[in-house]
């Protein structure tokens, strides 16, 4: 979503789902995995004003399908074909929201003449590097430096016409042949969802891991973005692209940049290249539009910012976020004379990838010595789990923090290496073979400590402590505070320059109680304070790049304030008024950024800034208030408050994008595998390419070519998924007797047709195998799976539960022992959802 809108977040929020006319749920079994969110769609269904219709697209008929108005099957890994057909249908039948499209998106922008697409490849491809040169993926600029546009959308080089051409190949018959979707069902989906292109209607898309866990995961989401921009559904109540996140604070962990490629607040992490060598170079690199500007110090840069940098967007303020971050982390040691200690930050090798799969590949080669495991369980949840488990044997030391001894904490036991079959290709060890030193730190449970979590719609809510930690277990906050103190002690007095980041790191979080640090001290630093007096900075517009403000994460700035001299942490707010009736609840908790509940909400009014979309009076979120000369509304405007009709940026709702528009065409390689999505088959697929000549996403990195399974040995498609009684790798549910009892066994679902072919009956033990390993499971023969008819070719798909392992009250074989080490071309998110297998009776 970030390449299209500027932020990679759920655009709306859970309660807002009640405001929609049509919901498309795709790549998610929402009724089972986000049941409370699903409740809001049900509210919409029974609201006479909305009469919400629900569409479910999934390889399997699930509990979500059961409550949907319309269900359409799809073969795993063919989402872009399905959605590309929808884009084509919208364009061929003029179902797009024209006023929205022309004003709020880059549909009218002209693209360089050199940009082209042929045989499944965009211009600039280098096969030897499996990478593109992005030079031609850019706009045309006039002599005044302005992007050339054609608001009639007729120019052959405008984004709209290029889009039309690109997706003209995605006709309904071709799409149905690739996806296995029955034509009549597919037609119904097209008709119903595209009805939301009418200005008085909104439609929402809800997705989860069924969309992202693919070699084309990012482009799957980009296809959603194109559809929602065409239909005018972004930035409006009941609209949006709603990523249903699967872990309670995965949003917060991402915000805090527990990812190699960013630092807190979604700023690219610095690399070891010349253009990152000092603070000024780094600011030049991360500030859009600054590349060629004449400045050599912060003073000169500030003058340019004051005058305005064209095509920079809100990221024009990046320098303030970086300097405030450095100030928060390194205190007095960060000052104007030393680049605010920018050199302390680690510079990653620009030529390397450090993401999950790469990390385990490096570990498997013995390149990593020590590992911290913070409440995660890759021996169950990691792709190619056999390999990831073997990688742990190569570590010198490992620190595991969890409530329980999960499979990763006990990877070295005899139990950890039991296998379903004797397969010489997969590793088998005993404890005496494994030299890894393991430290297990017992962690407190969620309600045995206090802190905040950012839910999927960016609402940050506080958790109060309801019980003491069990035994000697401690909160992770205490563990990290203590560890930080001890590491600092070991380095105390060091004068080596390489130790300065630790010696000078600010670390003062002790509280009154020796067992709990003062959480508000952490909150104040994270959300930002004035260096002079320690008072909260009230919002990120007040952050400075002169060292007078400190802020650990600029997007959380504004979550703290002083009221009557008392420090207020807004995630603790519990006031329930909802004056708009739209479910915004502005004083319940706090949402980043700046308590905006629906981002890009400028789009909820017409370009004039005042009028709601025709016939849609009650879904206007914000408006230009002539009397006060500023933006006002039910929601906090996701817009610069004073930008009025006289300002050229008045119709630029996507403030985090340099061009201010929603991007149908993604320029300059923000998506590495193409400005538009293109359907490529999964790495392991039963089908040859039909739409183009590429067997696989041409940019996806192939880590283990020798492990690619083919249809001769592995003719059946496999996918993985969750059930409502369990969660993720199961550590937090298989250790709970009530849940273990509800869902005690590892099952594999298969169709009646495949079961008959293989002589398998419901309840039989079966073996499922891929090139990565074999697992045992109990067969669940069901009508929920049906064989796909792919242009006359019959292909079977089976489904495996994700949650099982060898620890806890409910145990079973690990599904991820089957999944491959290959990931999305952009994010390296692993392909858990489509691979080839075989199945037989045990």
């Amino acid at each position, binding site marked *: 979503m970030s390449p299209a809108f500027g932020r990679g977040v759920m655009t709306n929020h859970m309660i807002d789902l009640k405001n929609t006319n049509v919901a498309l749920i795709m790549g998610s079994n929402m009724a089972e995995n986000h049941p409370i969110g699903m409740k809001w769609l049900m509210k919409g269904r029974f609201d006479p004003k909305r009469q919400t219709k629900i569409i479910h697209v999934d390889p399997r008929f699930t509990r979500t399908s059961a409550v949907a108005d319309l269900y359409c099957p799809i073969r795993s890994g063919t989402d872009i074909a399905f959605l590309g057909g929808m884009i084509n249908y919208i364009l061929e039948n003029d179902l797009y929201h024209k006023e929205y499209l022309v004003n709020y998106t880059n549909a009218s922008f002209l693209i360089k003449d050199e940009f082209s697409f042929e045989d499944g490849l965009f211009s600039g491809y280098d096969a030897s590097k499996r990478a593109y040169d992005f030079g031609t993926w850019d706009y045309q600029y006039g002599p005044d430096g302005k992007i050339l546009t054609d608001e009639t959308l007729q120019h052959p080089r405008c984004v709209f016409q290029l889009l039309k051409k690109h997706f003209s190949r995605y006709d309904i018959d071709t799409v149905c042949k690739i996806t296995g979707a029955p034509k009549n069902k597919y037609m119904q989906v097209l008709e119903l969802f595209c009805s939301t292109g009418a200005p008085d209607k909104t439609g929402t898309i809800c997705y989860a891991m069924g969309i992202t866990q693919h070699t084309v995961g990012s482009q799957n989401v980009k296809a959603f973005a194109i559809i929602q921009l065409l239909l005018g559904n972004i930035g409006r109540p009941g609209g949006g692209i709603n990523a249903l996140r699967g872990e309670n604070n995965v949003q917060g962990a991402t915000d805090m940049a527990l990812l190699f490629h960013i630092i807190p607040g979604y700023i690219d992490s610095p690399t070891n290249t010349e253009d990152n060598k000092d603070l000024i170079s780094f600011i030049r690199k991360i500030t859009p539009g600054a590349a060629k500007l004449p400045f050599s110090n912060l003073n000169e840069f500030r003058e340019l910012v004051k005058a305005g940098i064209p095509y920079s967007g809100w990221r024009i303020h990046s320098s303030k976020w970086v300097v405030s971050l450095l100030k928060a982390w390194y205190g007095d040691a960060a000052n104007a004379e030393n680049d605010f200690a920018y050199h302390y930050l680690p510079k990653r090798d620009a030529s390397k990838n450090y993401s999950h799969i790469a990390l385990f590949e490096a570990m498997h080669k013995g390149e990593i010595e020590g590992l911290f495991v913070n409440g995660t369980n890759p021996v169950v949840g990691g792709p190619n789990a056999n390999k990831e488990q073997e990688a742990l044997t190569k570590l*010198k030391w490992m620190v595991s923090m969890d409530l329980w001894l999960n499979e990763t904490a006990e990877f070295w036991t005899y139990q950890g290496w039991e296998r379903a079959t004797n397969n010489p290709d997969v590793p088998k060890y005993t404890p005496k073979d494994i030299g890894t030193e393991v430290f297990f730190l017992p962690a407190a449970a969620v309600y045995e400590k206090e802190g905040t979590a950012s839910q999927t719609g960016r609402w940050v809510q506080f958790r109060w402590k309801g019980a*003491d930690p069990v035994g000697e277990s401690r909160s992770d906050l205490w563990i990290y505070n203590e560890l930080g103190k001890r590491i600092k002690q070991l380095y105390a007095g060091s004068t080596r320059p390489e130790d300065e980041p630790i010696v000078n790191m600010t670390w003062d979080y002790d509280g009154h109680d020796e067992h709990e640090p003062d959480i508000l001290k952490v909150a104040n630093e994270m959300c930002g304070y004035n260096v002079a007096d320690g008072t909260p900075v009230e919002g990120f517009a007040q952050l400075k790049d002169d060292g007078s403000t400190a802020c650990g994460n600029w997007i959380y700035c504004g979550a703290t304030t002083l009221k009557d001299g008392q420090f207020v942490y807004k995630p603790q707010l519990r006031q329930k008024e909802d004056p708009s009736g739209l479910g915004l609840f502005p004083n319940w908790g706090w949402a980043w950024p700046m308590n905006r509940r629906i981002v890009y909400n400028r789009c909820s009014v017409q370009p004039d800034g005042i009028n709601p979309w025709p016939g849609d009076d009650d879904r206007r979120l914000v408006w230009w208030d002539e009397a006060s000369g500023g933006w006002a509304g039910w929601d906090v405007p996701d817009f610069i408050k004073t930008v009025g009709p006289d300002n050229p940026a008045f119709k630029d709702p996507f403030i985090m994008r340099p061009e201010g528009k929603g991007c149908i065409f993604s320029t300059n390689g923000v998506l590495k595998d193409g400005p538009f999505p293109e359907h490529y088959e999964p790495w392991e697929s039963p089908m040859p390419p039909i739409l183009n000549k590429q067997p696989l996403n041409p940019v996806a990195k192939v880590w283990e070519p020798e492990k690619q399974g083919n249809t001769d040995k592995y003719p059946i498609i496999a996918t993985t998924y969750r059930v409502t009684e369990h969660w993720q790798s199961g550590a937090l549910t298989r250790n709970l007797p009530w849940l273990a009892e509800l869902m005690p066994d590892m099952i594999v679902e298969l169709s009646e047709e495949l079961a008959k072919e293989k002589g398998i009956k419901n309840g039989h033990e079966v073996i499922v195998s891929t090139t990565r390993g074999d697992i045992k499971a109990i067969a669940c023969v069901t009508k929920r799976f049906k064989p796909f008819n792919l242009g006359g070719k019959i292909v079977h798909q089976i489904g495996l539960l994700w949650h099982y392992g060898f620890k806890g009250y409910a145990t079973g074989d690990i599904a991820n022992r089957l999944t491959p080490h290959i990931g999305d071309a952009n994010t390296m998110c692993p392909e858990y959802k489509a691979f080839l297998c075989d199945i037989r009776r045990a």
Partner: protein
Amino acid sequence: MKVTRRQFLKVTGATAASFAILDLGFDTQATAAAIKELRIKNVTPVPTICPYCASGCGLVVYAEHREGKETQLLSVQGDPDNPINEGCACPKGAAMFNLREIYDPHTGEQIINPKRVKKPLYRAPFSDKWVEKDWDWMLQTIAERVKETRDKSFIHTENGMIVNRTEKIASIGGSGLDNEECYLLSKLMRSLGVVYLETQARI
């Protein structure tokens, strides 16, 4: 800042109402009075947010804080004040009591979930068992391992540029932690020079 008394009254009010409609088939008045007194004695309802999916549902923890003894749960249930779930809970949310306590299958007694680990544990290289250790030893030893690995693998400069990184230490996970915890983790790891830093968002 704590939740106001008024809001908690609303929570407990809802609980009392659900008691009233129960038909137990015997003299409920005396029994209910006795049960009620026992159940609410020393109990404070405390709101939290569910640790499973990211919907952000609120739950209320009712726990009895007993003088000189370990806290004991009464229940964990949906928070009726939270606008996201309005008091509802899915099967996982409804089982959150078990995160800490269970009923012993043999005696029916309420006990701490035996799968919870109560002390830091250490597994020596090539050993086939855990050994209990104290926090002081564990934290100190881990800090020493970190320093040793960092110091011997640290890349201070590269091509004339300060790069301050180590590629020998990695950190994964954190999506189950609170924001403040993630923040400290991110700050500490980066100041150590860790670049192999990943969370569940990737997978």
